[in-house]
């Protein structure tokens, strides 16, 4: 399907950590071709015909699971969804038990979402299938960072030299970690903006510069990436209240005015309107990339499946 196939030197996609800029560029280039395929009336190819892809979700996520499911189906694979949170875990089965059970069924790709950091890595050591991390705890969410990069690259034509502000709950965000790793690898400048209680220590060592107010944090940026703040973190343990959070860290038209005039707005979803983002901004079709991100998500996941599935032997 693509020139990059066979040149992607990784068996699994467990994180952005460990990917070179060439690896990332390969994924984005392949994904670009799938964007076109997905806009045709006939969206289906036969690349993964006969392959079994398992969506193994230990944590609920409708949008990511749907995106992977669609990606697998559009490539002609057989996709099975397993929501483990409601089955085996309740019966006391461990992560490794589940992995070994699944492995015996000979899947080709395991797509894993788990609430604990490092779970995807642990699983990858126990199975023969390629493992794709669809989000592990507060560690990484590599396909989100790749789809964000594709969205930016298609709109801005490049990643290198751009300044990206990632705003909000950095502490609990796997999206922020993957994005910082990817964007700095690709030569973009990354800022994180949030209250000190939501910025993890040592984040500057990952290459991000830290800001605690929107005014200086958004000054002159090309991209404003908002993160979701979960309700239970706004009740006084990390942040005093939603009202105070929106006052200081909500993305309003006023706050956005500090960024470059053509700055784009991104959000991994689902949004808390009126908490981290004002509806007026979220729904601004000229600036908001939020729906583009969803579209790029399917293309990026197709590209990752493409690159990780070894070509079938004996012709196809």
């Amino acid at each position, binding site marked *: 399907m693509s020139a990059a196939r066979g040149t992607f030197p990784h068996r699994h996609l467990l994180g952005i950590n460990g990917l070179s800029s060439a690896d990332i560029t390969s994924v984005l280039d392949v994904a670009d071709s799938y964007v076109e395929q997905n806009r045709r009336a006939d969206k289906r190819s036969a690349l993964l015909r006969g392959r079994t892809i398992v969506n193994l979700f230990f944590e609920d996520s409708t949008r990511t699971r749907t995106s992977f499911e669609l990606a697998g189906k559009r490539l002609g694979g057989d996709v099975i969804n397993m929501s483990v949170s409601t089955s085996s875990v309740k019966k006391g089965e461990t992560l490794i038990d589940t992995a070994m059970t699944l492995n015996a069924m000979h899947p080709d790709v395991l797509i894993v979402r788990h609430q604990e950091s490092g779970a995807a890595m642990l699983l990858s050591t126990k199975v023969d299938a390629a493992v794709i991390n669809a989000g592990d705890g507060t560690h990484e969410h590599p396909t989100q960072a790749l789809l964000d990069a594709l969205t930016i690259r298609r709109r801005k034509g490049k990643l290198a030299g751009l300044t990206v502000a990632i705003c909000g709950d950095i502490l609990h965000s796997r999206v922020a970690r993957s994005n910082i790793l990817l964007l700095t690898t690709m030569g973009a400048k990354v800022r994180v903006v949030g209250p*000190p209680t939501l910025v993890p220590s040592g984040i500057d060592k990952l290459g991000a510069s830290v800001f605690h107010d929107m005014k200086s944090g958004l000054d002159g940026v090309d991209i404003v990436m908002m993160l979701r703040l979960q309700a239970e973190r706004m009740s006084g*343990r990390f942040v*005093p209240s939603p009202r105070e959070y929106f006052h200081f860290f909500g993305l309003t038209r006023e706050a956005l005015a500090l960024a470059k005039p053509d700055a784009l707005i991104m959000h991994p979803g689902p949004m808390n309107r009126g908490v981290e983002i004002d509806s007026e901004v979220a729904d601004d079709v000229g600036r908001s990339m939020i729906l583009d991100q969803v579209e790029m998500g399917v293309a990026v996941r197709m590209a990752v499946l493409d690159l990780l599935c070894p070509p079938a032997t004996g012709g196809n």
Partner: protein
Amino acid sequence: MTTAFTNARLLDPASGLDALGTIVVHGETITALGANVAVPAGADIVDCKGACLAPGLVDLRVTIGEPGFEEKETIASASRAAAAGGVTAMAMLPNTDPVIDDVAGLEFVARRAREVKQVKMFAYGAATRDCAGNELADLGLLAEAGAVAFSDGSRCIADPQLMRRALAYARPFGRPIVQHAEEPRLAEGGQMNEGEIATRLGLSGIPACAESILLARDLRLVELTGGRYHAAHISTAEGVALLREAKRRGLHVTADTAPPYFLLTERDIGDWRTFAKLSPPLRNDEDRKAVAAGIADGTIDAIASDHQPQPQDWKRLPFAQAAAGAAGLDTLLSLSLALVHDKTMPLLDALRRLTQAPADILGLKQLGRLAVGGPADLVLFDLDARWTIDADSFRSKSKNSPFDGYDVRGRVLRTVVDGRTVFRADG
């Protein structure tokens, strides 16, 4: 209107000025000061007759019962007591009822202070909602609405995780977290300093390490977060030593204490005198000396009144049932001058602990100093006048002073706020 304070010993710790001279006040502002200042024609002249004229005191720790406990103290009565004590600006703690943990609370204080129009009134915002120690209050919104600092008042912020988050969260807003450093589980049920005297009196004790353990913990958290921290009413030698070490290491830490902790000891409790029941408790003589030495060398930045008014009914009880605290506004300057008379420290240094230093801690950079163009907030006092404290004469609504009948040297003659005389001594 122009007033000239002539023939005064001008004392300004901020500039180091200590010289005979004149201050000219026009309206609310100092328009001239120094040794060779001409008195403008038509000015009212106040002949200071060689008495000391210094910046008005800035009291950074005052408990007022309004709203909620008006039987103890109101903003009006506290303001009169402050004026009598030479205090021209004060910051009230948030443990009112309701607690000052939102913008409306701050606006109430500001409005009452405007109506009373005596001394300048500032307010702390609660560090945690309802001062309950569980969740952060809206620190950012409180800072924007004028809160000078954050504190849970007489309650210790005990949860180390919450303290860490408070220090971190408040950092961008540039306001300190002010702590009552007392480990609550160690202090629980305690009535006075732990030791021989508590044992003789049959009262349960609060060990000195209740202060130092909490303080040591907080100083580590300051190091971790880079936050701004202020330790209130330091009472122990160990506490002073910890602060001295923290400052030597360059931590952004300040501290205050109050006159009982450098003038009295647990012995002053005598036969269960409830007026000497304080929080933190009066300690032993080594602690007292260490606190005085800490003030002298600047380890303790500020002297506050730590005014905690309590009605008679709350003190006329068996010791264990009596409320803790002492009224301190009326006597702040006179008691603090003991440090000068007993040669613990020079006059300008003592005044700095009462004026410039607390103003700086609260971010009130215009207050606590004498400057042309600055507000005419002044205290005129007789450094040597000897008198005996009579708690019944206090302007404070509550008369609970452990210093009733105590001989002091130094007396406030006049207090001026924004050019208005708000207090004049009789005679």
